[in-house]
Every structure is written in C-alpha cells, then in structure tokens.
C-alpha cells in the first residue's frame, strides 16, 4: 500500500512520485496476476483445459479460419447429430471474438502465434486486466490505497485462479474483467455524473453481455443499487446519469447479441431494470417539479399526481404480473430459477443439478477459494459504512448479493471473489491506515517535524489533529492527482474530489504503539499466509488440465494421457463422418480433439437428446444398439476408471444418465438400478444394472486383467464378470483403460436367412476408404 503523498512544499513532484509508484505497483500486480497463472503451462504444457474451453477453442479456430460473418452464420453439423447446433446464435461470442481479435492483431503485426497459444494465454492476460479494473473500482470507492490492496488480492485470489489459469479458456476468464470494469464505470459515472462514462459503461455492459450469461447479475445489481439510493434519499442527477443511459443503451446493445436478442426485454431477469427505470424517472420528475413549484403548489400537485399515478401504476403492474405469470417458469430461465430457489434444479431439471459446479459449496470450499478474505470481508463492510457513500453502498450491496449466490452454486463463487477482494482491500488498507497513523503519532521523532517532511510514502501529516480520518480521506482522493500540466486529467480530478462523501467522524483513532505494531505484524503475517495459500492453490490445486492426469507414486511421476490417446485414435483411424456417442461430458472434447460428429455435448440445450443417449446407456445391449443405430452412431465411447482408480468415470455418472433418461423415457426407472436404494455394481447389484450397456462396455473383459475384476474406484469386485458382447466390438482401449471405444456391429449379423453382404465388417480404415460408397442402413 503505497501511502499517498501529501501536499507539501513540492506537491507536483510528490504527486508525480505517487502516481509513478502506484503505476509500477499496478504493473507488478499485472505481471504477478499473469505469471501466477502459468503454473499449468510450466507443470504440464500449453494446452487447453477441461471441457468447455475446448468448445471455445474450436469456435475460435473456426472464427480465425472463416471470418466473422461465417462465424455468425455457423451451423455446426458435427454436434447434436442429427439436429446440429446454430453456434453463432447460441454462443456468447465475447471470449471468442476477444481471442480472435488478439490473434488477428498479432498476426497482422507478423507475430505468428497459433490460435491455441492465444487461447491458452487469454485468461491470464485478462486476469491482469481484472486486477487493474479492481484497482480502479476500489479507488473510486475508498481511495488508491485500498485500490492497490484490492488489486493485489484479486490478482491471486484462488477462486478466480481456478477459472483463469493458462489454458482455462472459458467465458468467465474475460467475463470477470468485464464485470468489474462495468461496475467501475458505473461507480465512476455515479461519482462524476459524466455522460461520457455513462456511455462507456453501456459499452462495457455490452462486452459483458457478449461474454457471459452472468450479465444478468449486473442488470439486477445496478437497479437494486439505484433503488437503494432512491429509497435512502440519495437520489441525485448523477445517479440518473449513471442509471438511465445504462438501461437504454445497455438494453439496446444487449439485444444485438444473438444469444440474448429479445430476451433483453422479454425475460424476467431484466424486469427489475425496467421497473427501476420507471421509478427513477418518477423520482426525477418529482425532483424537477419540486424545484420549479412553490411548496404549496407542490403539495397540490403531489396529491393530484399520486392519485392518478397510482391508478396507472397499478394497472401497468397488474398487466405485467399477468404476463409474467402466464409463462410456466415465470419468465425465468432454469439457471436463474435455481438461483432464486436453490431446490428448484434438483426437483425439476436434473441436467442442471447433475453438473458438479451447480451444487452448493461446502464451507471448506469457501476457505479454499477465498481464504482469509472470508474473515476480512466483515471488516471491509464496516469500513464501507464509515462513511457510507453511494459507491461504498454499492460494494456492500455487491458483496451481500454475491455471498447469497455463491451459497447456491459453487460456480458463482467466482462472482463473490472480486467483491471479497474489494472488501478485504478496503479493510486491510483502513487497518493499515489506522495502525501506521497510530505509530506515526506516537513516535516522537516523526511527529515533531511532520509538518515539514510530511508524508513521503506513508500516510502522514496527521499530527495530533482531530479530523484525522478526514484528512486521510482527502489524501487518498488527492493521491492520484496528476501533475498540473495535464489539463485533461485536472478536470477528472475535480470530479474525483467531489466523490467522497465527507466523513464527519472527528474522533481521533489512536491505538497504543505496541498494539499497533503487533497488529501491523499480524496483518502482514495474514497477508503472507494468504499469498502462500494462493500460490499453493495455483500450483497444486487448480493447474491440472484434467485431460492429462498425473499421479505420484514411489517410482516417480505417472502420466495418464488416455483421453488424448483415444481422441487421437478416433481422429486418425475413423472415417471423417462417423458419429461417436458418449455421455455429454465428452462431447466438446470429441468434436474439438477428434473432429468427429457427436450426438450430445456439454451445451445441454436439448434434454430429450441427452435423455436418448442416457437411455441407450442404461438399456440392455440390444435395445441400446437399436437406439444408437437409429442415430447412425458408429462408435460408442465410454470412460472407465476402474483399472487405475480414476473416480469421475461414466460408472460414477451413470445414475445421472438413468435419471435424465428416465425423465423423458419412463421405462427407465431409477429404482431398477438400485439395490435397496444403494447404487452398487458388485454381486448385489440388480440384474438391470448388470445388463445395461454402460456396465457391459465398461467392464468388458475387465476380469482378465487381474482375475478378480476388482474395481479400484468402487473398491469392490464387480458383479458380473464373464460376458460377451453381442452387438458391439471393442475397437480401441487406451493404455490405462480409461477410454474404451466400441464399434456397433453391422446389422447383418442380426438378420437370419438373408444373404450375407460381403466384407462389411472391415477394420476401421477399410471403412474409411469405403466411406464414399457406404451401403444404406437397412434399419432406416
């Protein structure tokens, strides 16, 4: 925390020094934010991680290859076979366009980086941006010291690292930056009342809408704050300028994004903003009339308007309510509803509930993800109330709502993290202020001549003076003052000065010297602990790319690269138009890495289709074969962890397949797969379980590995050990058996009495050679 330089003999120089210092601190924070996310590249390799990033990567590849127009019109026929997917209209394009632009820019400067490299490093770059945006936001709220602290905290908060390590090329990577930056511009507009910032704010909001579905958080939080300001009597023209243009411009811009479109005005997520928009206009009108009428006239007018206005309002509200109520989900999307009612998803939409990141978090995960910030947040909230300004009330509202949301879904911990960082930054910086001031005040050597050499690098000049807190405040706002010469900034500064609401706290906050020294040490220790934890989290917990697994054992490091082995095999040794069926988790990776058509993927937009695959997996072999054959599937891919003990395999996900399948096709009943309510695959398992396709494909010839068929994930011997496949052929199994690929047997084996078709059962390559002249499937 660079203390703000005080106005003293050579103010210009000191400001320059201060701003240069904070510039370099910010630069270092940016570098730090970038480099702490490189553990994944150093420990593993420069590769795209997990599932969704692979889709984004593929879209980016398409964008860079075919250009923006083709991208908007892209109908992807390699997924959701035979439905396909309109990518341009169903994808949040922000991330893709960002990375595409970076790639294009670099290439036009003749820096030939591959699309993959750009994608891998987009997230770390944007986390540096996010740290800087946090600095700006917090500076608007509580001054530069708090800003720097918050930026430093955000640069390494584990929750954010988990989504933005190099390679984690996901929407959230840029969305968090967009979120913070939008909030910053809102606060900035609120503090300055400048229409310029209001416009920028709308554009930043547009970027956020482009980037992530979480933009609804913004469009609900800002109206809430505006409403809060109005209710608490803080209405001002600045608030109007900050709010009204955002709603108008922001909604118009948001409607331009294909994936949002008319949702921007038609779904309930956006309703609050319009309601508050009306309210703020009523308030503004009242304000205006109040100013132009005499008090008496005003009273008359109020009675008149209120009676008429109320009637109209009721009518409008009634119509709206009727409209909203007419839709079964009240106009809310499933994900939003599960936010408002945490039990909603598990009751009605198993597909949302089946995703682990949609589960509520546990307490340890709070500690893991935001660490000591969890304890600093309350202090920050208190600091925000001393004094409460428009800006600080906003961050308080932000933290309160995000704490709630993070409690509903683990994934939204990400929204909480910046708020927690801002709050903790404020808390730490205030604490530092108090302690250093106490020390300064009590050190005789310093207080004696503090007037002359006031403040070089630390909060100072606060001698035995009563309005210490206030002076401090001013210092903070002044700190960023640029040198006189810059007239443009001068104007800005003028606004900045307006911003902080005056502190009326005139108490002297002085603690005993020893206590403050100890407290300072403890705070530094706390910070050090946080840093250690964050580095550990970045290095150990969040850097694994999840497509490459490693394990340490007594004889060194083992690498499990089975997924890519299987995808590479598919990509090189199957026909280009073959369809691969797997559970939807592996859809994105299969299309991106193996370049094969899949039936379902991670964009779970069609529940029925997923249920069909789920049903096939939970059906006996013959029925499954018929389902797959009707979908023109050539290969079935299952993930099996029983040999090496990889826990997130298909057998463990199997109950979700049953549930989702059973949700659409009632002949699949979950209890059939459970013995006394317990999910088991050992000899106690139900016959339905032991005969379903997933079981068979996973455990085919598994018994021959060790003679007992001991499953290392479930820690038990499997129930049915010896069986033959009648409708599927094993065509590939990876080195550690983690991915097994089966080929559907051609239908001729099942039709007796018909003449044999010659040679339709060839190896994969023969079929690829004969791709052009494939015989028609008799089942169609």
């Amino acid at each position: 925390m660079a203390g703000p330089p005080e106005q003293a003999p050579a103010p210009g120089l000191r400001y320059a020094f201060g701003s240069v210092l904070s510039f370099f601190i910010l630069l270092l924070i940016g570098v730090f934010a970038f480099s702490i996310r490189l553990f994944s590249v150093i420990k593993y390799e420069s590769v795209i991680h997990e599932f969704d990033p692979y889709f984004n990567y593929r879209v980016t590849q398409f964008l860079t290859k075919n250009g923006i127009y083709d991208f908007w019109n892209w109908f992807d026929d390699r997924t959701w076979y035979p439905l396909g997917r309109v990518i341009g209209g169903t994808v949040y394009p922000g991330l893709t366009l960002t990375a595409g632009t970076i790639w294009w820019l670099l290439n036009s400067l003749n820096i030939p980086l591959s699309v993959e490299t750009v994608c891998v490093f987009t997230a770390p770059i944007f986390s540096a941006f996010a740290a800087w945006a946090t600095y700006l936001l917090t500076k608007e709220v509580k001054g530069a010291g708090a800003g720097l602290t918050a930026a430093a905290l955000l640069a390494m908060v584990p929750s954010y690292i988990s989504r933005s390590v190099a390679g984690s090329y996901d929407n959230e990577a840029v969305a968090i930056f967009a979120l913070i930056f939008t909030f910053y511009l809102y606060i900035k507009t609120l503090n300055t009342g400048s229409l310029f910032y209001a416009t920028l704010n709308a554009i930043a909001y547009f970027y956020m809408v482009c980037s992530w579905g979480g933009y609804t958080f913004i469009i609900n939080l800002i109206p809430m704050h505006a409403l809060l300001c109005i209710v608490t009597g803080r209405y001002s023209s600045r608030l109007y300028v900050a709010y009204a243009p955002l709603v108008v411009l922001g909604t118009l811009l948001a409607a331009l994004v294909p994936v949002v479109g008319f949702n921007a005005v038609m779904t309930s997520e956006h309703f609050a903003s319009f309601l508050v928009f009306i309210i703020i206009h009523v308030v503004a009108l009242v304000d205006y009339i109040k100013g132009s009428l005499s008090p008496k006239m005003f009273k008359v007018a109020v009675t008149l308007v209120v009676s008429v206005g109320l009637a109209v309002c009721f009518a409008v509200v009634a119509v709206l309510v009727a409209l909203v109520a007419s839709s079964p989900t009240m106009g809310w999307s499933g994900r939003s509803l599960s936010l408002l009612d945490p039990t909603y998803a598990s009751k009605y939409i198993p597909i949302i509930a089946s995703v682990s990141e949609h589960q509520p978090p546990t307490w340890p995960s709070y500690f893991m993800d935001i660490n000591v910030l969890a304890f600093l947040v309350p202090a920050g909230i208190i600091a925000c109330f001393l004094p409460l300004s428009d800006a600080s009330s906003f961050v308080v509202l932000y933290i309160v709502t995000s704490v709630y949301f993070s409690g509903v879904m683990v994934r939204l911990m990400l929204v909480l993290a910046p708020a927690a960082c801002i709050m903790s930054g404020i808390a730490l910086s205030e604490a530092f202020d108090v302690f250093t001031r106490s020390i300064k005040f009590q050190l005789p050597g310093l207080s004696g001549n503090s007037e002359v050499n006031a403040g070089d690098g630390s909060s100072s000049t606060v001698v035995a003076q009563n309005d210490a807190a206030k002076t401090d405040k001013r210092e903070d706002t002044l700190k960023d003052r640029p040198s006189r010469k810059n007239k443009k900034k001068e104007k800005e500064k003028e606004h900045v000065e307006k911003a902080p609401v005056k502190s009326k706290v005139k108490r002297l906050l002085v603690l005993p010297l020893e206590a403050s020294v100890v407290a300072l040490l403890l705070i530094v220790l706390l910070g050090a602990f946080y840093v250690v934890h964050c580095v550990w989290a970045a290095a150990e917990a969040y850097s694994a790319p999840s497509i490459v697994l490693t394990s340490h054992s007594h004889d060194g490091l083992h690498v499990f690269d089975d997924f890519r082995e299987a995808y590479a095999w598919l990509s090189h040794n199957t026909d280009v138009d073959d369809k691969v069926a797997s559970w939807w988790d592996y859809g994105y990776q299969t299309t991106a890495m193996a370049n094969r058509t899949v039936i379902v993927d991670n964009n779970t937009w069609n529940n029925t289709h997923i249920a069909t695959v789920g049903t096939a997996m939970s059906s006996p072999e013959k029925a499954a074969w018929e389902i797959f054959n009707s979908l023109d599937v050539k290969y079935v891919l299952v993930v099996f962890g029983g040999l090496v003990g990889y826990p997130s395999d298909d057998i463990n996900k199997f109950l979700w397949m049953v549930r989702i399948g059973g949700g659409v096709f009632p002949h699949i009943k979950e209890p059939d797969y459970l013995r006394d309510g317990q999910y088991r695959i050992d000899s106690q398992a139900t016959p339905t379980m032991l005969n379903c396709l997933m079981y068979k494909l996973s455990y085919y010839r598994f018994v021959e590995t060790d003679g007992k068929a001991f499953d290392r994930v479930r820690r038990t011997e499997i129930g049915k050990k010896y069986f033959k496949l009648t409708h599927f052929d094993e065509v590939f199994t990876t080195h550690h058996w983690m991915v097994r690929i089966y080929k559907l047997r051609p239908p001729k084996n099942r039709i007796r009495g018909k003449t044999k078709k010659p040679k339709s059962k060839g190896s994969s390559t023969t079929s690829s050679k004969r791709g052009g002249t494939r015989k028609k499937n008799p089942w169609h």
Partner: protein
Amino acid sequence: MGFRFYLLAILISLLSTSVLSDLILSKVDRRIDLTSQIVRITTAIKVENTGSEPVSEFLLAFPEHQAKNLAYLTSAANEGKGKVKDSTSSLPIEAVDLNGMPPALSFYSVSLPKGLAKGEILTLDVLAVFTHLLRPFPEKITQADIQLMLFEDSAHYLSPYEVKVQSLSVKLPDARIEFYTKVDNTKIHGSEIKYGPYEDLPSFSYLPIGIHFESNQPFAVASELVREIEISHWGNVMVTEHYKLIHGGAQSKGEFSRLDYQARPNIRGASAFRRLVAKLPPRAHSVYYRDEIGNISTSNLWSDSKKTELVIEPRYPMFGGWRTAFTIGYGLPLQDFMFESEGKRFLNISFGSPINDVVIDNLIVKVVLPEGSTDISVSAPFLLKQRQETKISHLDLVGRPVHVLEKTNVVPEHNQYFQVYYKFNKLSMLREPLMLISGFFFLFVACIVYTHADLTISKSSASYLAKQQWDEVQTAIEQVQNIIHRCLAVHDKLEASLRDLSRTGDVQACKAARKSADVLLKEVSKELKPLLSFLQSSLPAAQIYPKVEELVAKEKELQARLMVKHSTVVDCYEKKSGGRDVEKKVAPQQLKLTALRQEVDDLLDFIDEI
C-alpha cells in the same frame, strides 16, 4: 499360394531381341535384403567388353513393378578387388527410354568412367533400393495373426546382356518362412535362401520366384513429411518435422483388445510397432514431440557427443493400416551446419528424416532463410523438385525466402547432405531489434507528445478560453486551500505546544514555538494576498470568491483567537497560576475556537465540492 507371374509371358517373347552392344557379364552376384520393409538389392557385376568398340554406357533393367517403386539407385565402379565404397566413385545414372526394348522394362543407363575398351573388365557395384515392394499376404490380419509378406523377383538376373555366371542370395528376417519357390540349385541356409549358380544365360532371361515369409518389422510409412529448416543467424537452426505416419503392413481387422496387447504384446500385436528411433545430430536442443492436440509424453531422449537419440512412441501402438500424425522439432547450433565459401554462405544439412527405417512417400523440405537473403541456390546429390516461397514470420516486413525441395519415395539412403547457398548481409540481423526499439521509442514519444500537446481544435473558442480560465481559478483555489491547510497545521502545532506546556511547564519552548509559528503565518499571509486578488479579478471565480473570502476571514479570526489563547495560557504559566484558572480563562476562547475550526472545515469541504 496363387502367384501371378504376370511378367513371364511378356518376357519370354522378348528374349529374341537384339543385344545392345557386345558387353558380356562374366559374373553377377546379387544379394537381396528383405530384413526390413525396404528392399535392398546389391548387385556385383563383372562387365566384359567383347566387341571392338569401346563402350561408355552400361544398361540396368528393372521390371515395371520394381521400377515404379525404385527409390534409390547407385552404382560404383570397383577397381580391382579392393572394395571401394566411396561415394565419389559413384557413377552417374539416368533413366533412358530405349526403342525396340520391351515396354514392361525400365532401363537405366550407367555412364562408365572412361569407356570400356575391348577386352577390358570392369566390376560394378549396383545398389537398388525399393519401397513398397513387399506385399502383405494376406492383406488383412487380426491382432493375433502374424504378418506375412510376399516378395517376387526373378531367380535369374534380368539384363539386356548375356550373363555367364550368376548367383542370388536372399536375406530374410529371422523368422518363419512360409514358402519359397524351389527351382534348380536352391538352397536354404538359416534365414538365407540361395539360388544358383546359374551359367550361360541369354539376355532377358527371367525365372520368377516368390518368397512368402513372416516379417514383423515396423512398416512405418510417412505418407507425407514436411521438414522445415529455419535458419536464424543469431545462432540457431530450428528443424520442425511434421509426420503423417501410417503402418504400411497388413491391415488390421476385427477387434483391438488392449488386454491381449498388454498381456502378450509379442504374440497379440506382433505386427504392430510402438516406438520409433530418431537419430538427431549431436548438440540438438529444445527437442519437442507433439501433435495437434498437445504434447505426447511418451518419448525419451539420450544424448552424447556423437549423437542425440530420440525415442518416440506414438500415442497408441500402430497396427496395420492405422494412421497417426505428429510433429518433432529440435534446435541445432548454427555453427555446425553453416559454412562460408567464396563470399557465400551455405547450409549443409541432411536431407531425409532422422527416423530409422521410415519410408517417406512424399518429402517436402522447406529451407527458411533469414529475411534479406539473396542469390539462393541448392546443390543436392539427387534430382529434386524445387520452388521458391515466402514465409512471413516474427516481425518480418517482406517475409523470408523459403526454398522448397520435394521428393517422392525417400529411403534412408537419401539421408545425404545437401547445400543451400545464399548471400546474406549480417547487418540485416539488426533489422528486427531496431524495428522493435524504434517502435517502442515512437510509442513513448507519442505518449509524451500526447500528454504535452494541447489538442484543442480551436484555441479562440469561448469554451476553450473559459476552460482555461477555470483551470487557472482552480489552481489558485487549490493553492489557497493548501495555504489554509498549512495554517491549520501551524495551529495544530501551537496547540501541541500548549499541551506540552501543560505537561512539562516549559514556557520557553512554548514561546519558541509561538515565534516560529508567527513567522510561518506571516509568510503564509504574504503568499495568500496575490492569490486572493487574482481570484477577485477573475471572472469565472465570481461565484466561488465569496466563499474563499469567507474562508480566509474565518481562518484569520481563528488565527487571532488562537494567538490570544496561546498568549493567555503562556501568561498564566508565567504567572504560575493554577491549572484550573487557565482552563477557566481559556474555556470561552476554546469554545469559539472549536466552532470556528468547524466552520473552516466546512468551508473547505464546500470549496472542495465545487
């Protein structure tokens, strides 16, 4: 075993064709090496000129199915008995199209070094290397089957000349031999089959034989290999090799069971190969092995001073007909490969793939020279298709010249050095750093200019002037504020001195403080005057001036009261009156002081807000 001796009928009808010249082959020894997928036929020929004319060329004949798979052909004159295997003695060979010769045969003419005079005898060593000459039979096998290969050739040496004495030996891999054609004088000795000797055979005699044998050698065929050799004069040669590999043996059919493969890899998967060895030049560094979806972790690297050995495993074991694609890259020190001669630089580097025993159907070598290279020429020991390209790489302006060499059917014998000559000015190396430096320089200059320049469009517009005036006013007000703050600080000091006094009773110190404060305040008021008069005169300040005035007045009052209080207290202490007295006297003053202080603060806040 259905052999198709498709050449037989044609050839027999051709036996009567006239002999080209009067050469006679007095002895022919052929050795066919079938131990790998590449068929190497070494022939030692003793040529005798029985005619009267000196002969300067010698014809080699290959049947069509061999000729189209002929990858490499070299012949060397063997003077006397001493074995000379020097590449310099290799004789120029070219394909010739002879009229009146059977069309199913391809001919290559070897130019003899100095013409063979009458009665002279010359010994020639001919090495012919063929790819794809072994046919898998059966063509499709399951994982458990062994891979059987079929080789067809003639037991007699096919030549347009008469052959006096000849023999053939076929070397097979150490494994089962399913079948071989038995003709006269056939002997089998371990894994070697011997045919002959045969004596006095006319020209174009042909005796088809077939050998069917087990071969589990890696049939690694690169359907395409693109080698990119990029030269950086900063001291590095970067080689990137993109392989598209296929197992060229018998196609695999049916299931692939990992279980069987893991349990008994030599039986269930005998035909598959799982690793390849690349012999890189010594001092190779920055070696990587990846494919389009990332790094492939199954590789090993050993290096010593003689060579660097890279063992790579494809992601999955390669069964017959399976394909894979990967990229190997490595850096080499420039000085090992870059030389200079006659004012030109040349790169001297090997042509083919560093991987042993890979047949490359289509090899493309791209030599990327540094930007600014001119006069590019290539010298290679064999015929190549050449073309020029441009590649735009890091920070290039015009792009780097790329010399592209293409060759089909490449075998390890082609791993010879070739040279790329070009001219390059060392100063061009500095182009990119200079560009970067100047780029940043101009960026900073632009920043400086931007912050210093006044970018207002119209300097005389009213709003601009107003803004300028307003800026001045603001500066003035800020200064006033500063001054007031300083005053307040002085006040605080005085208060502090009073507190000290009450604690220590040191009147002198207090007085001294008072004196210094007086001096300071006087200075301050001096500074204040011009500012105030400026504000008074300035038009835009009209609105704010009263407040400033008020502020200054209040501050003056505060100052005065404080002075009074200070002197009262000091007086009291000098008179040694009791603490309570002092308090009593000061109390009213103190009240007013706090009130005033409050007002001043409020005013400051107010001015702040404007």
